[in-house]
């Protein structure tokens, strides 16, 4: 430190229409340092990366690379200037059907001065040079599709490094790697750091961050909410800057439940993970919070029957519960509002009414024939109850705002009574008023069911839940009653500190 930053971003802005995504970002990257960028979904990380890598044009501000103005018009220009990005999806960085050697030299196949003929021998020599610089010991003739994910990731990074960049951006590179595979990636990153590359490392995994970070920059709502560069790094402060309380909204009055609806004993979600045991009571709203990738969705899917636990048992109302499919779960009264409504919730060709009735067609038909009147009545009732803003129940979902689309998804699963109601990231891409409507509805209508929310944002948990559980590394690491919460302890658990200190 003390030296000038290799890459310097100042006052960077970006808006999409009315929506300001980046509100003046300042970011410095130094040679031979790993800067970790943290931020929840929607904080603007990916927009920032896309501007720096030349995918989007910036809306304002300056970028300087080694003292020169840096203004890439396309990803190719950014790469030529010395800023290389390895994107989250590994397969975007490699061509699966070609061999390793060709992948490593792929960028020389096109562009000016590329030879018209493809000479395998030359390619292999060049590829060997690239691989040696990285310390890669891969079979250069192997097809990339046959390699394990970690090796593909290495190839993608090595390919990026073939440009000898000054700045390397890694976007969640370990999200699909095992921990042993990740260790190899870290060794490679250490090597690059030693070679004086400035690295921007985007991740949610605290273990990665603890292992690699020289500095941490936290982002929230399009601005930098904290920079941490004093050793030892303040990891909890970084998490707090990313997720901590923004504004004090009305606190909920925590309720306790006397009667258990759902219990889990010794559920194991991933190899080596500590088993999960929990009890959810009637009329209770429980939120499970934790960073992205700690297994929240895996747990939701396990409870809903679309994923099998490695070990453990579950009970609903005292009876053994081992769903083999979503269908079994629904029959047992376990409903799930799945994460990412566009992918796994909304049926595009259907209007509101048909989207709401989708899981309950059998209950709304006689001898297989739909009872359209009952269907419409259910839709109208739900539109009223959740305050869905629309012209009528015949509206298509594409005509609704994100918040109203999400209300339709919640309405779908609230149109019939459930025993355990699970919502996975129900507030993603939802405006604050819709979020409040949904939260209020969830709290107002417990009907003797247990409600379980999975949220990354701690605020969302504090606003809706009676009890908050913290997840880390596919296990539950903390439990809090939502009346006089020790936020520091909660944040420490989210940040995955040494487990002994949390206990």
């Amino acid at each position: 430190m003390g030296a000038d930053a290799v890459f310097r971003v100042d006052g960077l802005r970006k808006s999409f229409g009315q929506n300001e995504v980046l509100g003046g970002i300042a970011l410095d990257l130094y040679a031979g340092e790993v800067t970790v960028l943290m931020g929840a979904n929607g904080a603007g990380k990916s927009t920032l990366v896309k501007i720096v890598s030349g995918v989007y044009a910036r809306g304002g501000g300056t970028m300087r690379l080694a003292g020169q103005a840096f203004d890439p018009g396309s990803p190719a220009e950014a790469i030529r200037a010395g800023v290389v990005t390895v994107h989250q999806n590994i397969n975007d960085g490699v061509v699966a059907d070609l061999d390793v050697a060709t992948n490593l030299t792929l960028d020389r196949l096109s562009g000016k001065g590329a030879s018209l003929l493809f000479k395998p021998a030359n390619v292999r020599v060049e590829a060997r040079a690239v691989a040696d610089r990285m310390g890669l010991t891969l079979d250069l003739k192997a097809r990339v599709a046959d390699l394990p994910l970690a090796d593909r990731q290495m190839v993608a990074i090595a390919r990026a490094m073939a440009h000898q960049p000054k700045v390397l951006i890694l976007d969640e590179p370990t999200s699909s790697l095992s921990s042993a595979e990740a260790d190899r990636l870290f060794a490679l990153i250490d090597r690059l750091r030693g070679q004086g590359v400035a690295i921007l490392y985007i991740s949610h995994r605290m273990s990665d961050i603890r292992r690699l970070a020289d500095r941490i920059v936290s982002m929230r709502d399009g601005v930098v909410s904290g920079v941490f560069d004093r050793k030892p790094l303040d990891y909890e402060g970084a998490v707090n800057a990313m997720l901590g309380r923004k504004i004090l909204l009305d606190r909920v009055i925590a309720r306790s439940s006397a009667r258990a609806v759902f219990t889990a004993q010794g559920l194991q979600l991933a190899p080596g993970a500590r088993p999960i045991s929990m009890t959810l009571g009637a009329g209770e709203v429980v939120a499970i919070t934790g960073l992205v990738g700690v297994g929240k969705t895996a747990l939701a899917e396990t409870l809903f029957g679309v994923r099998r636990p490695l070990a453990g048992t579950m009970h609903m109302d005292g009876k053994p519960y081992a769903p083999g499919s979503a269908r079994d779960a629904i029959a047992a009264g376990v409903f799930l509002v799945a994460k990412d409504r566009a992918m796994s919730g909304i049926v595009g060709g259907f209007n509101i009414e048909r989207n709401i009735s989708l899981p309950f067609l059998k209950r709304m038909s006689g001898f297989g024939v739909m009872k359209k009147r009952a269907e419409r009545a259910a839709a109208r009732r739900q539109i009223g109850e959740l305050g869905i803003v629309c012209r009528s129940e015949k509206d298509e979902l594409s005509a609704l705002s994100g918040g109203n689309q999400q209300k339709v998804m919640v309405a779908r699963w609230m149109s019939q009574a459930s025993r355990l109601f699970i919502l996975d990231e129900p507030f993603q891409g939802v405006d604050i008023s819709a979020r409040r409507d949904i939260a209020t509805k969830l709290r107002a209508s417990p009907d003797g069911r247990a409600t379980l929310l999975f949220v990354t944002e701690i605020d969302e948990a504090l606003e809706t839940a009676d009890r908050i559980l913290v997840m880390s590394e596919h296990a539950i690491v903390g439990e809090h009653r939502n009346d006089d919460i020790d936020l520091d302890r909660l944040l420490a658990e989210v940040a995955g500190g040494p487990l002994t200190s949390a206990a």
Partner: protein
Amino acid sequence: MSSSLAERAAARGRSITLRDYAIGYGFIILLIGLIAYFAIAADGFASPQSAVFIFQSVAITGVLALGVTATLVVGGFDLSIGSVATSAMMAASYAMVVLEQNAVVAVIACLVIGAVVGLINGWLIVYMRVPDLLATLGMMFLLLGLQRIPTEGRSIATGMTMPDGSVANGKFSEAFLALGRHRIDFFIPNLIPVSVVVLIVLAALIWFFLEYTRFGRMMYAVGSNERAAELAGAPVKAYKIWAYVISGVFASIGGILLAARLGRGDIASGNNLLLDAVAAALIGYAVLGAAKPNAFGTAVGAVFVGVLLQGLTMMNAPYYTQDFVKGAVLVVALVFTFALSGRGKR
């Protein structure tokens, strides 16, 4: 189908524009215009007999198109329908002429073949993960070969010589032939062929099934967002396989009608079935701006193709221009569906 154009426009959150009219009624208007044009330009086009002839000519392709509509609804496709139909035709002929069975046995044999082929298609696509176009293309070639094996490539007719030198003496039963040839009195004696009745009944059935039953509803959901349907508790794999079984059975019914009309197992017939049926189903996307596969649209699409061909024939257009015209109409219909209505999701 029940929602009006105004509701539809409102559902997308805007008012009706000229473009909505074009998308909504374009094909119906085109069909009416086409009929009006042929009525003036071609002598004898505007007569009940001509209308019936058109219906008769589209009966078989219409039945096939209704079947393929079921696979389109679940987001799949079935290229094997043409060869399922000709295989069923050969099987019916073989059962009656060579094995000397009655009409009931022949019909049941055909339906079983259709169902089994549909099951295999569905199994290949759902469990073996073969892409739908490739799986059914493979099945198409397989059946084209298979149907020729029992007779070593010969057509089947009464009195034919079998590969082993014996003579096949069985006959098509009268009851079976009636399926293709009998005409029902309707104001004018001997007006409506049984095959047209079969088409209308099947069209009404599949329309009701897709629009009004929970199974049809879930099939649309599977085609639109498979994961959402699965998370809503639908047995997605079963629905997909059923769609191919429906397609196979409908294609075999088409084959039965073909055999009954021809009265022999002609290996050279049925070449155009696939193109015509697929064209009808895809034109159906554009009818009333549905922008999705639907039974009513498919039926209109089949009539559209029939009118076009009958009109061109009566105007003495050479046979070799017909495929070109059909292809051109298909392309225009697809533009209507995907580009203009802006919902090209498939």
